[in-house]
């Protein structure tokens, strides 16, 4: 009986361990997604703030 209990407990602990690991992975990846958003936003606003260069543009007249 006792050994059955032990076995059950160890399975339970193992399942908990897997759930914890999955949860940790999910949280880490979610955090990575949020950080990537921050990086993109910073990059976007930085890009938009750059001065526009004066460049000669030659539009093609031919069709």
């Amino acid at each position, binding site marked *: 009986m006792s050994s059955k209990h032990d076995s059950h407990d160890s399975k339970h602990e193992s399942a908990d361990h897997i759930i914890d690991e*999955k949860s940790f992975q999910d949280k880490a990846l*979610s955090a*990575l997604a949020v950080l990537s958003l921050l990086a993109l936003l910073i990059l976007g606003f930085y890009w938009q703030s750059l001065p*526009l260069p*004066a460049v000669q543009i*030659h539009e093609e007249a031919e069709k």
Partner: protein
Amino acid sequence: MPSGQFLVENIGYVIAAPFLAGMLIILGLWRSKTTAMVLSIGSITFGFLYSIFLFYAITQEPKLVPWQFNVNWLATSDFHLSMGLLVDNLAAVMLLVVTTVSLLVQIYSHGYMRDDPGYSRFYAYLSLFTGSMLGLVVATNLFETYFFWELVGVCSYFLIGFWWNKALAAEAALKAFFVNRIGDCGFLIGILLLLAATKDVWGSHVLLGYFDPNGFDLGGVIQKAHAAGLLPAGLLTLAACFTLLGPMAKSAQFPLHVWLPDAMEGPTPISALIHAATMVAAGVYLVARAYPIWLTPDGHTGSVGLVVITVIGAITAFMAATIALSQFDIKRILAWSTVSQLGYMFVGLGTGAFSGGIFHLFNHAFFKAMLFLCSGAVIHGLHGEQDIRKMGGLKKYMPITAYCCLIGTLSISGCPGFSGFFSKDDIISSACHYNIWLGALMIFTAFLTAFYMFRLYFMTFENEYRGDAHPHESPPVVWLPLVVLAFPSVLSGYLGFNWESLNFTSSYGLRFDGSEAAPLANQFAAFIYDGKTPHFEGMNGLVMLISTTAAALGFALAWKVYKTHTVHVNTDIATSKQPLIAFLYDFSFNKWKFDELYLWLVNKVFLPAFDFVWQLIDIHIVDKFVNLTGTATMAIGTLMRLIQNGRGQYYAMVIFAWVAGLTIVAYLLSP
């Protein structure tokens, strides 16, 4: 932070990292799902951060680029092929797009593919694909591009057929493979034609290279070869048309578009990454990268090559939009919309709106990847259901997915303020400037786009739920990438727009007449423009108003039809007593009958033709020649058998006869 020069010169690590991750997973680390995921996502995170720092470095020190590094790949007595790395502004933008979408798709995949037994294999393929795509982006010449072009094609084949035990997936993978080989065959012929005509001009420079500080790049060499009489305009056009077959197949352009909707049999993250944002855009990227091939020999527009690009793009954009109107599979509707939007990009490049075409590629990558990931979240939430007739009312159950999908729909429809509006209007304005009927067709296609996209949105998320599953919102690891992509789906458009330049009174508000120096219209064009490429900045106030009105009409019609009458409308139209309406619906629903046409062509034309050639050459010539050889040998053997019968007396008699004969001859001839 590392110096700009260090970042530019070590770009190779960005390409090598995903390759290494993919190889390590395949070679044994697939046994641990966590290790496979960490390796794959780690390598692409590195690439993403590197691309951001690289972009920053280039904007800080523009003189760092273009930079290239080459090594000999294959040497013959006549020429040597190179392989290397090219970093310039165009490559920097593409690196950002590929690494961003790949990173978010890989994060999403962790939630989406969690219970799939092929989880590790999936990450291995994703990494190999990402490495190949990044290699394609920084390739220095056409041969290297072709090398990576084939690698992304193979990865695409593996990923479409990822669930190879499903017959449809295996067939779709094969179909994609065949159609792309047709395009690639043309691509290779085009490259070889160019090489044959120009090989004496290249000297020791990188053969068919995109950049050379001394003018020995594609554009410069084509001009030199033309001036030397080595490359007549007709031959350049021929090479351009053959080469274009590659981008046409890869970017699913008419008539090589048939593989992309079927490719939706692959996992949804793949549809988002490969078949929406990156690989299918590689065709557009190649046209932009090797633009001089499609210009006139002296580097101007007005070439047959650009006309072909424009016509193919316009037909594709319109055709795919009409097909998307009547489809019911959520992923296939998005696939047809991708085909249509790629057609817009081709029209942009063909009509000279170089930055407009690339800008639409840039915006489209974000909002289309998001739309596909939304469709994946819906399919995941409905336990595999893909038919929008069995959806409806999902906004109540999965609000985050619904709002992200709405943002994507508004963006692709060209709603003012969303990213698709800016780039699409740039292309439409350029099309109007090029030819008013072409512009009208593009505007009508914008109307169709708004209609079919809002049809999808209303049938999926509005009204009452019509299915029998238990819909639920996905976990954060799945919906967060959608939210992240929603931001560029709105904001990236502003990089290509400048309010100060908008001029409603002019015929072409943002047009540059080329007569005087002027600031570029927007940040995106300023970054992409290389000072040589023909360039049209034509965002026109009037065209903008008309195309926005067209999109609004599309939205209003979809609202009227699908918000109020839901799904019965399709049945009513399909069974209409008006023969024309029923025919048009059937024509749209059956994808303009292209599959049937190709099947007929294969069965009735190609296979009989191959059979005829086989009969003629193999049976009547080769086989008969081989048989003749055998028959002749047998006849000679039979003859020899009569002489060489193995009897000693016979041989003695022959010897005696010869001796006697020779003696008589000698006697007769003696003086």
